[in-house]
């Protein structure tokens, strides 16, 4: 069966520090991969999605970037964190075609101080 792993679960980082969040999927190949952010008390904002290795689409211009170095690995990065980057980050995957629904990871709670 397919599983999705996301880490770390929680992270406290100072303003101006770099960020790297990792997400991996097991048990499937060529998945579509997604990064969402959920600010406190708000809905989900799609940040990036990828339909293949090296293929990244950005939904919202911001301080973050994403990369997909391997088929089942999706990384969210920042060179210098801002206070406004705080939030709950969720990785998700779906089969190619994607509209069958996403499977989400357990999330990373990022607090920028």
């Amino acid at each position, binding site marked *: 069966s397919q599983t999705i792993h*996301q880490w770390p679960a929680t992270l406290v980082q100072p303003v101006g520090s770099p960020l790297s969040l990792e997400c991996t999927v097991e048990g499937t190949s060529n998945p*579509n991969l997604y990064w*969402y952010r959920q600010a406190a008390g*708000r*809905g*989900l904002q*799609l940040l990036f*999605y990828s*339909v293949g290795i090296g293929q990244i*689409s950005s939904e919202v211009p911001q301080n973050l970037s994403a990369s997909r170095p391997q088929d089942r690995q999706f990384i969210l990065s920042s060179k210098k964190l801002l206070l406004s980057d705080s939030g*709950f980050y*969720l990785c*998700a995957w*779906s089969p*190619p*075609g*994607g*509209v*069958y*629904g*996403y*499977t*989400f*990871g*357990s*999330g990373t*709670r990022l607090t920028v101080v």
Partner: protein
Amino acid sequence: AQSVTQPDIHITVSEGASLELRCNYSYGATPYLFWYVQSPGQGLQLLLKYFSGDTLVQGIKGFEAEFKRSQSSFNLRKPSVHWSDAAEYFCAVGARNSASKIIFGSGTRLSIRP
């Protein structure tokens, strides 16, 4: 482009009472529709989905939803809620010809009164 609206930010119901969470979507054709649930500090879990066919779909945990094309709605229902149903619920819509993006509503927080 598709969009989804959940008009209720927060709902409180008594344990054992029935529940209906509202969801309205905007899309030019028949969309794919989803309901997800999120417990505090956790990821999202798929409750149910509608692609085609029977407009009343059954999901996990005793939930069901009905697709009403004339009202552009996909409301979530449960006949009798349990304290463990307290969570955030998200409706989502996907376009059939999209690059696989699903758009989420802003969520409805459900509280259960003992």
